[in-house]
């Protein structure tokens, strides 16, 4: 039978697979106590709740400015720290610079960091540093290393070996080759990536704030807990504006970094 022709057997096979999949989904839903009646009740209740959130209590807005700034500051401190460490992990994790054992160690560490969500890192750090912005800064910095370290390492491995040879050939030491050939080649992409990471960190820090790292997320959570829903709306809108603005700023800044590229 040629591949293009309709096959009854194949049709039945697909139908059987779909039936099995549907049965599994239903079973899982039953196990998790998902029910349609709860859904409909929840929607009605949710719509009734919604009226509590509106209109927003704009008088609370001035009190949101400071927490919003704290959120920005947490990210403004955490991102550069994460970037600086990611250079170290990137160099140690690059095949063309580091011996195999060092590369494996560095790559494993940053893979673990990537595997742990910031919120898990935060919960671990809260045990050591207590609640507050310090734990948030540390959690975001460590989270940034996971992503940026991998990107730096990969970028370094892409550097043309002949460029590094041409610098080594004048008698430069390994560290000089890194400083004068490798870093200049990877720095523009690192700057662009860490600006993007700043944007990701703003979003993550809203969530971390709710867990106790301070900032706008903390205000949002506090307002919810005190049942001040119209105040919570203001906090939510403020964090939305923060995320939106950081995204615009990040796009703009990264396009400026790209200018060096355009000269090519």
């Amino acid at each position, binding site marked *: 039978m040629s591949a293009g022709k309709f096959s009854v057997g194949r049709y039945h096979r697909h139908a059987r697979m779909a039936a099995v999949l549907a049965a599994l989904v239903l079973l899982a839903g039953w196990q998790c106590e998902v029910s349609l009646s709860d859904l409909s009740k929840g929607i009605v209740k949710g719509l009734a709740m919604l009226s509590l959130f509106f209109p927003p209590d704009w008088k609370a807005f001035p009190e949101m400015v400071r927490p919003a700034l704290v959120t920005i500051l947490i990210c403004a401190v955490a991102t550069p720290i994460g970037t600086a460490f990611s250079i170290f992990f990137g160099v140690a994790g690059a095949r063309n610079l580091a011996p195999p054992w060092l590369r494996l160690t560095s790559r494993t560490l940053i893979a673990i960091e990537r595997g742990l969500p910031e919120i898990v890192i935060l919960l671990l750090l809260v045990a050591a540093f207590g609640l507050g912005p310090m734990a948030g800064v540390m959690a975001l910095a460590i989270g940034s290393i996971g992503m940026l370290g991998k990107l730096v390492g990969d970028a370094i491995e892409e550097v043309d070996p002949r*460029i590094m040879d041409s610098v*080594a050939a*004048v008698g430069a030491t390994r560290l000089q080759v890194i400083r*004068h050939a490798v870093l200049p080649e990877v720095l523009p992409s690192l700057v662009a990536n860490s600006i993007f990471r700043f944007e990701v960190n703003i979003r993550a820090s809203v969530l971390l704030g709710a867990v106790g790292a301070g900032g706008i997320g903390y205000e949002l959570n506090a307002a919810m807990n005190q049942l001040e829903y119209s105040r919570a709306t203001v906090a939510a809108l403020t964090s939305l504006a923060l995320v939106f603005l950081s995204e615009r700023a990040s796009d703009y800044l990264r396009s400026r970094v790209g200018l060096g590229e355009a000269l090519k």
Partner: protein
Amino acid sequence: MLDVRNLTKRLPDGRPLLNGLSFRIEKGEFVALLGASGAGKSLTMRAIVGLTSVSEGEVVFTGETGKIYRTTSIRRQDLRRARRNIGFIFQGCNLVRRLTVLDNVMIGRLGRIHPLRSWLYGFTDQEAREAMEALDRVGMAGFAARITASLSGGEMQRVAIARAIFQRPLFYLADEPIAALDPKNAEIIMRLLQPLARENPILGAFHQPEAVTRFCTRVIALRKGCIIYDGPPRLSADDLSAIYAEPSSETAVRPSLAASA
């Protein structure tokens, strides 16, 4: 001045890539290495500067004070001292693309300054002035502040030469400096290299026998890792066909292909 003795490089299976090369290069010479692709030209130069380890043989040269340098030495510090006296002119595309032209020229001095200084505050004004002089010599002073990636191939090649001049080496190696260039730019590069060779000898790999005849003082021809000609740059048609002849049948069939046939 530069003394290459019995330079040999073998693959792990024992097949030779360089087979006992020996030659001396004296002051004032502009020596061309000719040979088909894979004959061992680049490998010879990489071995001379110590970027490739060799199985046997020695590379020795003497400085003006009579100091002796070896790049085949195993000690890292010796290698660094020797390398800073060799001006390796790479193909221009091997410059650090994201640095400015001037920064690329300054790299020529890295072997002479303390690593800590180059990490922390870079180069002195005096060094910058000398780097500008080197750029001026290759006609690129006006490009000093440009990002290297924005230059043309011929311009990059001139910057690569400026880096080697700024290095103040005892001799130059030039790995196919005109291979990727159009005839006009190739001419410019050869006219820069010729007077340079009178001050400090140049050993360069080339693929252009007619340019070599016009500009060089001597030719060393390689074939399958052996020297098959060493003499004046006027090559007869027979010499050329011997250098660039098709590989004979026993090497044309690669072992891997022979095994599967």
